[in-house]
C-alpha cells in the first residue's frame, strides 16, 4: 500500500501540489485525470522520488519513503515509470535500454528477461535498433518493457499515449492493461483524456489546481 499524507510541493511561489492525501491499495488501478498544469505529473514524480515534498510524507508498504527530511533514492522504491514520449536513452539500443533496468540480475538472466519482454511487446526484431531508428509507437512499447523489466510493485504512467494516433493508442492501452494484470502491480495512470481514464477500468481520481477534487474510492 502507498500512502500519501498531506503532500505539498511548491515551485518558486506556485504551489503545484497542495496537501494531497491519498491511499493506493495493492493491485489497485487508478487513473489520475486532470487538465494540463494541474500538478498530476509532479504528484507522480513525488511518488517516484524524483521530487522532494515540502510538507507531508509518502510511505510504501509501511516504509517511509519521502518527507522533508527523508528521501529514499528512486532506485530503491520498486517503481516502474513510463514517461511522456518514452524517454529512451539515445546511446543505447532497444535491448540495452531494457537491460539497464535489470541491474541486479546476472547477465544470462538479463538476456532471458529482455528477450521475453521484447517478445511480449512484439518488438523483438527491433532489439538491436537505436531509439532514433524506431517509430513513436514502438518507442512507447520499449518504454513499457523497460518499466516492467524489474518487476516493480508500482507502475506509474505519465500520459504515455500522448501524440499517438487513435489505433496505436488503443493497441498500446490494451497492452498496458494486460501487462499490469499479468504483473499484479499497482498502477497510477496520469491522463487528461476522459476516455483513457475510463478505459483503465479502475478508480478515477479527478485532480485540479494541485488538489484532489473528486476521489473515486
Amino acid at each position, binding site marked *: 500500500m502507498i500512502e500519501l499524507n498531506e503532500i505539498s510541493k511548491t515551485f518558486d511561489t506556485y504551489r503545484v501540489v497542495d496537501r494531497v492525501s491519498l491511499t493506493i491499495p495493492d493491485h489497485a488501478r487508478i487513473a489520475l485525470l486532470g487538465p494540463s498544469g494541474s500538478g498530476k505529473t509532479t504528484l507522480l*514524480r513525488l511518488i517516484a522520488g*524524483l521530487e522532494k515534498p515540502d510538507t507531508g510524507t509518502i510511505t510504501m508498504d509501511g516504509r517511509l519513503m519521502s518527507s522533508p527530511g527523508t528521501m529514499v*533514492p*528512486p532506485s530503491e*522504491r520498486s517503481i516502474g515509470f513510463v514517461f511522456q514520449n518514452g*524517454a529512451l*536513452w539515445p*546511446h543505447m539500443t532497444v535491448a540495452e535500454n531494457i537491460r539497464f533496468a535489470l541491474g541486479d540480475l546476472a547477465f544470462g538472466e538479463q538476456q532471458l528477461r529482455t528477450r521475453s519482454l521484447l517478445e511480449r511487446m512484439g518488438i523483438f526484431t527491433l532489439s538491436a535498433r537505436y531509439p532514433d531508428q524506431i517509430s513513436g509507437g514502438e518507442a512507447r512499447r520499449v518504454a513499457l518493457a*523497460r518499466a516492467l*523489466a524489474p518487476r516493480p510493485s508500482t507502475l506509474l504512467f505519465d500520459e504515455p499515449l500522448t501524440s499517438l494516433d487513435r489505433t496505436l493508442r488503443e493497441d498500446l492501452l490494451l497492452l498496458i492493461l494486460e501487462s499490469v494484470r499479468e504483473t499484479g502491480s499497482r498502477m497510477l495512470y496520469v491522463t487528461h483524456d476522459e476516455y483513457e481514464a475510463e478505459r483503465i477500468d479502475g478508480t478515477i481520481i479527478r485532480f485540479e489546481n494541485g488538489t484532489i477534487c473528486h476521489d473515486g474510492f
Partner: protein
Amino acid sequence: MTTSSFFHRFAARLSPERIAVTLATILFFLLILCPLIGLSFDLVQAYMTGSADITSPLVLTPRRTGLLAASVGLAAAVAGSGLLIGILFISALFRLPGKLRYGILLMLLALAGIPPYIHALTWSEAIHGAHLIVPGLPATGWLVSFWVELMALLPLSAFLSWLAFASLDIRLVDAGRLVRSDIVVLWRIILPMAAPALGAAFGFVFLLCCTDYSVPSLFGADVYALDIFAQFSASNSAAEAVLYAVPLLLVTFLVMVASRAGIRTLAQTPGWIPARSATLPEFPGWFRVLQAGSTVLVAVQILVLFSGLFLAFESPNVFFASILMAQEELAYSLLTAVLVILISLPLALAAAQELKRPGFRGAAAWLIVLVPLAVPAPLIGIGMITMGNLPFFSAFYPALIMPAMVSVIKFSPFAAIILFVQMRFIDPLLFDAATVFAKSRFDAWTRIHLPLFAPGLVVSAGILASLTLAELGATLIVSPPGHATITMRIYNYLHYGSSSDVAGLCLMVTVLTLGVSSGTILLLWRVSRGSGIRGDLP
C-alpha cells in the same frame, strides 16, 4: 517562366535588408578567412618567384617533432585534466541550492575571462612562496607550464563541463535514476550522453591551449606556437612560417573538425539552461572524495588568483602610478575593444542566420566559423600583415586598427555562435508579426528585432571585450610601432619589469575583466525579458 516575371521575382527578393544581410555574411566569412587567404597568396608568390626556402620548413627535424609532440601533449593534458576536474566539480555543484549553484557558475564564467598571463603572474608568486617550504620545487619548465595552464583554464573547463551536463534531457536521467544508483546513472547514462558535448569542450580547451604561447613562454617552455613566431622573426617570410606551422595546423584542424559536430549539437540542444535534477544525487564515498578534491582545486585557483594580486599590490599610490604610466596603452586597448564590438556584432548577427541553415551550406558555415580557433595566434597576425602587404590592399593598410582586426577575426565567430544559440530561443512568428504590424522596416528592426536579439548581443559584446583585452599572440605581431595594448605592456613587464608595476597593471586588468563580466550579466538580466532566458536565470 517569362523574362518579366523572373525579373519581378528577382527584384522582389532584392530588399535592402536582404542585400545588407548577404553582404555582411560574405564580409564576415571573408574576414575570418583573411589570414589564410593572405598566407596562401604569399606561399604561391614565394613558390613562383623562388624568393623563400619552401622545402626545409617542411622537413620535420627531431627537434621539431619533439616540440610538436610536447606541445600537443601539453594541450591534451591540460584539456583532459581540466575536464576531469570540471566534471567532478560540477557533479558536486548539483548538490547545492539553485541560486548558489548559478552564482558559482556565473563566477566561473567571469573568472574564465581573466587573461592567462595574470594567472601566470599569481602562480609564479605562489610558486616562489612555496619555495620557502619546499626548496627544490621547479619554478619553470613543462610541468609548471602544465599546472599554470591547467589552473588558468580551470574556470572555463568547469563551465564547459556544466554546459555539457546541462545539455542533457533531464527526463532521461530521471528514467535511469528509477532503476539504478546515481553513480551507475552517471557512468552509463549521463557521461555517454554528454560525451559529444564533453568532446567538444575538450577540443575547445585543447585548441585554446595549443594555439597560444603566452603562459608556456613565461615559464620557459618553448611550445610550437611560439616557434612559429620565432621562425617568422628570423626569416621575415610568411611563406616559411606557414610551412613551418603545417604539422601543428594538421593537428589543430583535425581536432577542430572532430569537435565541430559536438559544438554544433551543443548549440542546437533544445533547453540547456533549465536542466536540473529535482532531488539530490547520492554518490559513494570514494566518489565524494574525488569531488571534494576537485572543489579544493577550484578554490585554490580562486585563492591564488586574488591573494597573489593582493600580496603583490604594494600601495594605492603604486597602483595608480602604474595605471598612469600605462594610460596610453589602456586607452588604446579600450578603443580596440570597442572597435571589435562595433565591427563584430553586425557581421556576427548576419552570419548567425547562415549557421541556422540545414544541409551542406549550414555544415560549411559551421566549418568556416571554427577555422580561427584552429589557427595559431601568431599565424593570424602574420596572415593579416601579409594580406595588408598585397598590392591592392597596401594602399589602405589600416595599421592602427590592425589589433582590432585580428581580434575580430579570432573572436567574432564566438559572437556568431552565441547569437545563433540565442536566435533559437526566439519564436520565428514574432518576426512575422513584426512584418505585419510594424510601420516600416526600420521600425521593425529597432523595436522588435534588436530588443529580441539584445541578450545575445549583450553576451557577445561582453565576451568580445574580455577576449580582446586579453589577446596577445596575434596583437604582438600586428601592432604598429609606438602603439601597444595593455596586454603587450604587461607581457613585456612580466619578462623585464618590476613586480609592483606588473601587479598593479594585472590588478587593473582583473578588475576591468570582472567589471565587464559583471556588467554583462547585469545588462543581460535587464534586457532578457521575454527572450526565453530570463525565467531560467536565478
